[in-house]
């Protein structure tokens, strides 16, 4: 690079960001975090120690946020308009599930966490109906 070019070259780089999707999607990620919420509520109810209970609530909050994140990624990045033909209630399913995550955040009722697991299973069925693991996972080596 000549001295002039070096002198003229910009000192700051800015980016026009786009998502760079890896193409790996699986509702199992959301389910594992939702199972954590379920188990934490169980443990919360079985323990009366206030410090333990405070920690349990804080951890449930974190896990629930991860459920929401994983559901959002599936909703925004994996599912496409053409999938609505196979799953006409897709938006409603995600709307209800993400609302349920907010409920689980605020709740220590096991039934709320169970309902969330069931809703994620419905999303899992939609994922499978539209391609599932065959399209969005890397094949594991046989055991």
């Amino acid at each position, binding site marked *: 690079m000549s001295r002039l070019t070096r002198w003229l*070259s*910009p000192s700051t780089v800015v*980016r*026009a*960001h*786009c*998502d*760079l*999707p890896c193409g790996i999607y699986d509702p199992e990620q959301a389910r594992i975090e939702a199972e954590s919420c379920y188990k934490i509520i169980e443990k919360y109810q079985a323990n009366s120690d206030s410090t333990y209970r405070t920690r349990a609530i804080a951890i449930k909050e974190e896990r629930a946020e991860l459920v929401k994140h994983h559901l959002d990624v599936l909703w925004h*990045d994996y599912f496409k308009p053409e999938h609505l033909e196979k799953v006409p209630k897709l938006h409603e399913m995600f709307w209800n599930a993400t609302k349920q995550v907010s409920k689980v955040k605020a709740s220590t009722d096991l039934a709320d966490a169970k309902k969330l697991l069931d809703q994620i299973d419905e999303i899992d069925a939609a994922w499978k109906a539209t391609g599932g693991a065959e399209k969005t996972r890397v094949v594991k080596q046989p055991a």
Partner: protein
Amino acid sequence: MRPAIEPGDWLLVDPRVRNWPAKGSVVVFHEPDTDELAIKRVTAGPRERVSFAEGYLVLGDDEAWLTADADSAATAELGFGQPRDSRNYGPVPIELLVGRAWFRYAPLGRFGRLRRR
């Protein structure tokens, strides 16, 4: 930001903030969710109404709506997903704007003023 800006373009940025963000201009700003410097076009300014999530929202007195020129087909061609802009992170507070990109001085084949839309 294709076709207005291509990767590797060298741009002049005007840091004066009076009378802007003007709708249609290209601005450099700190992304609200990452704080990284990014470049997008102002598609709506303070107090304007924008479509959002099958409804609309009205921008505040100190907010702008910044979007990419490239559509998802153009970004897919380059191997990317959806453009990341106000449709992901919502309105951008004006205090995060750094300046208006107004002139491209390299490459020479694309030398000239950046047009507003």
